[in-house]
């Protein structure tokens, strides 16, 4: 389709064409993505294998004895060439690394294949379980692997730097450690600023995620827990067991999984956009010049933030309770209804009522936050944009579409994605309002233990919670697989929207 043809279409048709082309482009985009992979792999190999190898070879062939000694004693080249502090730090890390490897790293890493053994040992009269803890073994192994990578990087950079210092010395110059420290407030400011947050991210986010993914490949559950048992690697057993259709229980699982998945996506979509747009509209209304008592309106909305979410959600869920809720007794008193409406546990029409109620209640929770955020950003829109638009005779709606919305999307685009992701993982609202009820019913079919307590309004995340925290037996392996599923879905949607919001970014340059 040429541009002229496109422009000759009416507005709805254009939108249809764009939607169509979006889906038509998905395979092409995937193909383009696949085409890029070999290039990436090659650049990675070049960067992390070939270049280091060449550097090390050069250092070995052309370095003097100080550089060559750096191969064994990390930082020796620095210590002897005006960078005593840096050299000592590198050496200290090496010493720590060797000690760690001997004491913790090597024993744990050697058990990673089997994940340890345990058995009953009688000490005196009592019998006790003595043996390994598989989870600890995995955790220490991951830490050890990370430390090995860090050690290798340090070793490499130390050798490279030593060679460079030798070359500098040859022309009568040197580079001091002080220069590096000083650069931390200049060109290397980002290292200084990001090092602490990154460390926190590493320890409490990245390592747990790696461990979580690995658990998906083990049979970790209530029957394989410390101290009486260890768990083992089972390969892709959990994955294949869940997503094959070969017996009644796994087909039930698959069926339930698809239903929960569908509701999770519907929920995330409506929850995100209803909050975003309604919140923005409220902020815009309050922000109007003619409106008085701005502070009052904002304060009223924000008092709901002041009440902790779990309290207000619990209260609301009690208010909408079928038998004794305030809403139902009020409606009965008015004579509008005869018996209580099952607001949050009606199972008719695939539980439509509870689902709608949850989304509505969620806007109650979310609008104040969006309003608060939008007010801050709306104030930042340059007034002259509106003034010139007004002079040109633009209607308020047009101004909203052409100025406010693009500006908001420019600032909050990534936030919107993170909200969508947050809603897919929104545990609080679902768990406190409906706890996933009404439950799925399977008739007289035998449901596997992982389907215990799963309901129509359950999201994947609350399901995982049930599997791994409240249920008995707990199935950590299955929970991990579901977690990875969430990741795959979220990654798919985020990548699509992320590339779109980047496009918005380039169009609307507000500087």
């Amino acid at each position, binding site marked *: 389709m040429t541009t002229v043809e496109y422009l000759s279409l009416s507005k709805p048709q254009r939108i249809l064409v764009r939607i169509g082309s979006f889906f038509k482009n998905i395979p092409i985009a995937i193909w383009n993505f696949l085409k890029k992979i070999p290039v990436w792999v090659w650049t990675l190999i070049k960067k992390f294998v070939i270049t280091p190898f060449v550097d090390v070879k050069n250092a070995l062939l052309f370095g003097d004895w100080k550089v060559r000694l750096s191969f064994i004693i990390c930082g020796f080249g620095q210590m002897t060439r005006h960078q005593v502090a840096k050299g000592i730090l590198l050496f200290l890390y090496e010493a720590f690394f060797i000690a760690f490897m001997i004491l913790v790293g090597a024993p744990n890493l050697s058990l990673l294949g089997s994940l340890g053994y345990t058995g009953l040992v009688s000490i005196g009269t009592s019998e006790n379980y003595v043996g390994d803890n598989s989870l600890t073994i995995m955790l220490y192994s991951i830490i050890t692997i990370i430390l090995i990578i860090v050690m290798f990087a340090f070793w490499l950079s130390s050798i490279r730097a030593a060679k460079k210092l030798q070359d500098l010395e040859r022309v009568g110059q040197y580079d001091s450690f002080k220069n590096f420290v000083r650069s931390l407030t200049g060109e290397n400011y980002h290292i200084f600023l990001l090092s602490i947050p990154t460390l926190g991210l590493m320890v409490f986010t990245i390592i747990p995620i790696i461990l979580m993914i690995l658990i998906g490949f083990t049979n970790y559950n209530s029957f394989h827990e410390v101290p009486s048992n260890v768990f083992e690697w089972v390969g892709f057993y959990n994955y294949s067991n869940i997503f094959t259709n070969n017996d009644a229980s796994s087909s039930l699982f698959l069926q339930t999984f698809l239903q929960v998945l569908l509701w999770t996506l519907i929920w995330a979509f409506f929850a995100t956009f209803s909050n975003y747009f309604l919140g923005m509209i409220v902020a815009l209304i309050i922000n109007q010049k003619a409106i008085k008592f701005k502070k009052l309106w904002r304060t009223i909305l924000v008092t709901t933030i002041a009440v902790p979410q779990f309290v207000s959600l619990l209260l609301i869920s009690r208010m909408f309770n079928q038998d004794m809720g305030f809403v139902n007794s009020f409606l009965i008193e008015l004579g509008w209804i005869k018996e209580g409406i099952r607001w949050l546990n009606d199972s008719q029409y695939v539980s439509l009522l509870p689902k709608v109620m949850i989304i509505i209640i969620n806007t109650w929770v979310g609008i104040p936050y969006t309003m608060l955020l939008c007010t801050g950003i709306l104030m930042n829109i340059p007034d002259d944009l509106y003034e010139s638009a007004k002079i040109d005779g633009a209607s308020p709606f047009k101004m909203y579409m052409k100025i406010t919305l693009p500006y908001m999307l420019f600032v*909050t685009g990534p936030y919107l994605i993170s909200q969508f992701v947050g809603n897919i993982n929104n545990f609080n609202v679902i768990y406190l309002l409906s706890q996933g009820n009404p439950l799925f019913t399977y008739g007289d079919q035998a449901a596997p233990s992982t389907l215990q307590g799963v309901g129509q309004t359950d999201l994947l995340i609350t399901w995982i919670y049930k599997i791994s925290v409240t249920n008995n037996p707990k199935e950590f392996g299955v929970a991990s697989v579901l977690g990875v599923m969430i990741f795959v879905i979220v990654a798919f949607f*985020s990548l699509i929207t992320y590339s779109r919001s980047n496009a918005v970014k380039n169009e609307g340059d507000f500087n």
Partner: protein
Amino acid sequence: MAKMVSQQKYRSQKAVKITKQVLTYIFLTIISIIWIIPFIYLLSQSFISMEGRAAGIDPYSFGQFFPTFGPTGNFTFNNYVTLFNDPAYPFITWWVNTLIIAIVSSILQTILTLLTSYTLSRLRFKGRQGIMKLILVLGMFPGFLGMIINYYILDLLGLTSSIFSLILLYISGSMMNYYISKGFFDTISKSLDEAVLIDGGTNNTVFWRIIMPLSKPIIVYTILISFTGPWGDYMMAAYLAHGNQEMFNVAVGLQQMLEKGAGTYFTTFCAGAVFVSIPIMILFFILQRYYVEGIAGGAVKG
């Protein structure tokens, strides 16, 4: 004639304007009522005596909205008295715990979040895009599976029996919240930075003298979010406490009150919830000052 027509037109325009305003006010009043109802409900329940209810069939009879006054009424202050004196539920300990956790992690989290946002928005360095993508990807994993493992890690560090561990967990994720403030910083003109840098300032000066004063609304937002998060957090706190009452925050404590108290503690729970809401309200009133219009004065436009 022409004058009259224009006058009429002016009048009708004015009428439209006034109706519009009146409708807006009505709309705002309605949504205010909707938003305030649960809070009023909470407040009024906290003044209702539980004794009268327990005598009835169902202690959870929520049908009654307001307490009744007078000699036969069930209005009482007893819930607040119980709240502070019940040895089974050390509310004051929980409240102080939560306050410490929330204040410390709010301060640290705000600083770290803003610094991260500033770095990602203003500094250009190798791996910037990589870090942003990494954070995006990390955010896609459901958080609380990691929580089970985090308990394990904290256990290895020997921290599980102190509230310090909660603070550590809350601030460790602060890098992940860079989105909003980074987006905001992006809209502040870079010509301002350049001017400072040319005049001999450093990146530090840019951050403290340019970005911070111009970003008050977003700082306020970050503080509020990072305070209310730990203040009302239930899941992580409950998991880390592992039933140890000394380590509870108010959310976990109140939840226990509701569950173990089997209904008889409901109004005390409401009283506790009112008390929990107060610090955030105070915080908001203090911070609202910075939300005034006109922050986005000339400088931001660039």
